[in-house]
Structure formats: C-alpha cells, structure tokens
C-alpha cells in the first residue's frame, strides 16, 4: 500500500513538472509582453525595449527560460518577477491563502451536502424529495458559476437592506482598513466568505449528489446489505455502516476530477466577488502577458489537482480493502 502510494506520488511529480512547462511554453509562445512598453506614447527608445527583453530573458530559447525560472523556484523558492518587475513571491502567498480558504470551505461544504443529498435521494427514490433534488441539481448543473454568483448577490441584497446593515458582504475577502480583536477580524472574514463559498459549494453539491445517488442506488440492491439486515442490524445501521461506505468508493475517484472543475469555478467566483486570489491572478497574467505569473498559477493548480488525486487514492485505499492488499 505504501509502495502503491509512493509510486503514484513519483508519477505525479513528473506530471507536475511537465504541466507547468507546457503552460509556460504556451504562454511564452503566444504572449507579447513587450507590446505594452513599445506602444507607450511617446514611444520609448529602442534600447529601453531591448533592455526589457533581456531582463525578461526573451533573447533566450523557451526551454532555457523555463530552466531559469524553475531553477529559481526549486533552489531558492523564488518564483521570478512579473513583467512590471515586481517580485512574484510578494503576492503569491497572500493570493494562495485567499484561494485556499475559498476552495477548502467550498469543497468541504459542497462534498458533504452533495453526499447527504445524494444518499437521501437514493433512499427515497421516486419520492418527492428525490424529484426535487434531481430537478434542482439539473438546474444548477446547467447554470454557469458567474450566473449563480450574480444571482446570489441579487437575492441577498434585499436581506441586507431589510436588516439595515451588511450581514454578508459582496466584495473582497475582508473590509479594507478594518481592525479589531482577533474575534472581530474572524467575524469580518466570515461575513465576506459566506456568499462566495455558497457559490462554489452549490455547484459541487449538485454534481456530487447526482453521482452519489446512483452509486447509492447500486448499493441498495446488493446482497450484502440484505445480509447485514438479516444478521440483525437495523436498516439505518446497515445503510450507514455497510451501504454508505461502499457507495463512497466511486466518489473518491470523482473527487480527483472534481478539483480541476473547482479551480475553474474559483476563477469566476473570485472575479465576481472581488477576491484577489489565484484565479484573479490568472486573468491578470493573461492581460499583462506575463508568462511567469501563468507558470506560477499553473503550478499552484497542478499541485492542488494532483494532491487531491493522491488524496483520493488514499481515501480509495482506506475505503476499499482490495486496493490495500496490492
């Protein structure tokens, strides 16, 4: 089991490097970072542009440029500089923290809600609850995140107005210039966190509840569940200790794919709710034609996706004894 997980991890590291290189190469091939400088009015002298090109290593071939960047990352933990010559490290950790907070809260709530809804819908198959959750999950699956986010804002506004105060905030991850005790800071952050988290979690819950429902339905008809009840377990105990555990196994794999989905959703959520996280940075990177930012964001995303893939392997092994034996 440890060998299995270690082998997977080694494979992931290779994928990580290649994925980052791919993104870096694509960005370097298509971006024209000097345009912003050369189109300035009045036009700067050619020597200035040339100096900029040299400082961005544009005179070197792309693999070598990537080598320089990767060397900085691996040896010094330095992610390079932006086109505007600001160190990427300055922003990286703050942005990563902001995105992680959003993703983690969203995933945890989304997965738990999705699993619970799916299991309940399966147990109450073809009853009202089942039909309503099915209809809602279809509706949410057909609605892009940026519409969900905007709708949440529109729907919440009257609540804030009725309360006469900002119960939940629409913009940013904390109030600018806010200071107070630790508890007040925490509450302030929480007030900002709720709506974006709901925007992410609601989509995840819709996806997971669909899959969980069908996984649970497969299990409901199985022999071992009948046996468990025959040996004297109550239906509820049988369902939760034997049924749910088995029905969660296919979900572990889905979890790995789900994270990539989440990252895309995160980009929109951050833009709509004015969070300056990694997703927002990706858009900034494209707008500024900045290959280093793109590579950094890609690395962040790839680490998340692969870590969740690895985690899903662990969960899989924990849930399914057959994998552990190998």
């Amino acid at each position, binding site marked *: 089991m440890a060998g299995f997980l270690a082998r997977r991890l080694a494979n992931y590291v290779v994928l990580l490097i290649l994925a980052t290189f791919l*993104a870096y190469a694509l*960005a370097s091939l298509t971006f024209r970072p000097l345009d912003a400088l050369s189109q300035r009015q009045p036009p700067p002298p050619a020597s200035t542009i040339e100096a900029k090109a040299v400082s961005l290593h544009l005179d070197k071939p792309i693999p070598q440029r990537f080598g320089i960047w990767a060397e900085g990352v691996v040896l010094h933990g330095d992610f390079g500089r932006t086109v505007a010559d600001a160190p990427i490290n300055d922003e990286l950790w703050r942005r990563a923290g902001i995105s992680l907070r959003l993703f983690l809260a969203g995933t945890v709530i989304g997965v738990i809600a999705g699993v619970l809804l799916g299991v309940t819908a399966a147990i109450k198959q073809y009853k009202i609850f089942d039909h309503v959750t099915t209809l809602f999950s279809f509706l949410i699956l057909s609605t892009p995140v940026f519409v969900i986010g905007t709708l949440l804002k529109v729907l919440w506004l009257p609540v804030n107005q009725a309360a006469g105060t900002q119960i939940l905030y629409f913009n940013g991850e904390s109030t600018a210039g806010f200071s107070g005790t630790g508890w007040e800071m925490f509450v302030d952050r929480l007030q900002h966190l709720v709506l974006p988290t709901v925007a992410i979690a609601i989509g995840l819950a819709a996806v997971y509840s669909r899959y969980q429902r069908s996984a649970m339905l497969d299990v409901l008809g199985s022999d071992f569940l009948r046996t468990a009840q025959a040996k004297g377990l109550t239906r509820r105990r049988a369902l939760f200790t034997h049924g749910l555990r088995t029905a969660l196994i296919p979900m572990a794999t889905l979890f790995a794919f789900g994270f990539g989905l989440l990252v895309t959703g995160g980009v929109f959520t951050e833009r709509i709710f004015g969070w300056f996280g990694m997703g927002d940075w*990706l858009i900034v990177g494209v707008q500024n034609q900045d290959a280093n930012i793109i590579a950094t964001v890609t690395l962040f995303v790839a680490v998340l996706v692969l870590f969740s893939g690895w985690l899903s392997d662990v969960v899989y092994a924990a849930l399914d004894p057959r994998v552990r034996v190998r």
Partner: protein
Amino acid sequence: MSETTTSTSTPTASPVEETGAAPITRGRLVLRRLLRNKLGLAGAAVVVLLFLGAFVSPLVYPWDYRTQDDLALLMPPSPEHWFGTTKLGEDLFAQCMRGLQKSLLIGLLVGVISTAVASVVGATAGYFGRGTDRSLMWLVDLLLVLPTFLIVAILSPAFRGKSWLLLVLLLSAFSWMITSRIVRGMTLTLREREYVLAARYMGMPAWRIIARHIIPNMASLLIIDATIGVGGAILAETSLSFFGFGIQPPDVSLGTLIASGTDSALTFTWLFTFPAGLLVATVLAVNFFGDGLRDALDPTSSRARGRRASRGRRR
C-alpha cells in the same frame, strides 16, 4: 407514463407493431422509450424551438443585432424591443438570438468533435495496449492536470481577431480526455470478443477493426456523450466569452451579453435576466434531452459516469 404516446406521435410505429405481431427493431424500441420520457421529450422540443428561434427570428425580426436605436437607450422590454435595449440602444432580443446562434453552433460542433477525438484515442489505446496505451493515457493524465479553462485563457490572445472556428477547435482539443478513458475501458473488453478475434485472424488491419467493430459497438455511449458534451461546451464557451477570451466584439455570444449585463443586474435587470435565462434554458434542455437519450439507448446503465470513469482509471 401511459400507452398513448407511441401510436399517436410516431409516424414510424404502425398499429400492427403495437400489438407485438411484428418484431421490433432496436431503433423503434429506442424511439419508443425516448417518447415515453416526458422530460427528455420536453428538452428536445425546447432545443428545436431555440434552434428555430436563433436561426429564423433574425430573418423576420425588424432589428439587427448591430443597429443602434438612438431613441431607445436602456429601455425596459416593450412591444417594439421584446427584451429591451442596451446602453447603446442595441436591441437585446436580436443580440440574444445572435448569441444563441453562436452558442448552439459552437456547442454542437465541440460536442461532436471532442467525442470523435475521444473515441479514436480511447479505442486506439485500448486496442493496441502496451506502450501505445500507456503513453496515450499518460497524455490524458497530463491534460487533466491542466484545467481546460487555463489553457484556453493562455492561448486566447493569440486567437484574437481570428475566426470563431478556432475557438471550436481549441475547446474540442481540451475536452475529450475523460470520455477517452471510458472508451478505452470499454475497448479493453470488446477486443477479446470472438468477432474481433475473427476479424484479426482474417488479417483485417487494426484501424479497420477499430472503425468497423469497436467504435460501432459503443455507438450508444458515444451518442449520449456527444449530447451531454454539447451542454458542457456551451457552458465552456460562455464562460470564456464572459472574460473576453472567447467570442470577440463586435460579434456577440450569450457569454459576452451576460458579462455586460452583470454589472447592471441590480439596476437594469433585463440586461442580465434575458441572456442568463436563455443560457440556462438552453443547457437545461440539452441536458434533459441527453438524459432521456441515455435512458432510451442504454436502460441498464446506472447514470453514474463516475463509475465507468473509475473503472477505466483503476485499470
């Protein structure tokens, strides 16, 4: 679910067959199951309506999506401008229909192309096995690590000002991976079947076995997948256009319309409500139709694509 559906609404189903005297072909069976699924049928009807609306209405509606009515800036919906007008006095209904055209075309093309790529890659990997399989599936893993959105966002500046067909190619190039895993898993079992072995021993070349025997045997899966892919592709296109990475002005898509309506969602609600509602209705209808199609073509399948995907992934 009554018995009334088949005899009245299908021209192909003759009364003789209803009694069970004639053998029922698979096509008829599928059609009959599809017609019994009310949600699926409603989805199909809405899709047809939207298609008609998107392609016929510009011919009869008095306003073009580009003309600006200077006498009606930011007007709410009225008999003259059905969906109201924008800041510049453009007619929102005409714009929505134009955007819907683009979204439907892109969705359809991407759904078909990406399923085709997925079936070729998956079948090749599964049929040849060994090194081919390992390298192709590794490529799939690599592409799955990079979210599609990220790649298309990076590449979009290079495609600015070029044809929207490039966007179709780009979207298809990065949305076939999960399906190809499923196809590969199915190919692994299909290639051991007697008819495949027989064809191989008769000396049929591998590509013909794949084209003649392997892919047709997964037709129902592929049809379902293409349909579901259409919905996904429409969402992907609008998402990209929302950020200005997809369809470029002066052309419009539902994504660009929603993007420009988002800021005024609280003040000039129609600018957001109509394009967003149209988008959700479109994708919802496609998904309902896809779901109905799945039940009709493959009634034994559990609806979990995740399970199939996991079987492919787990080896």
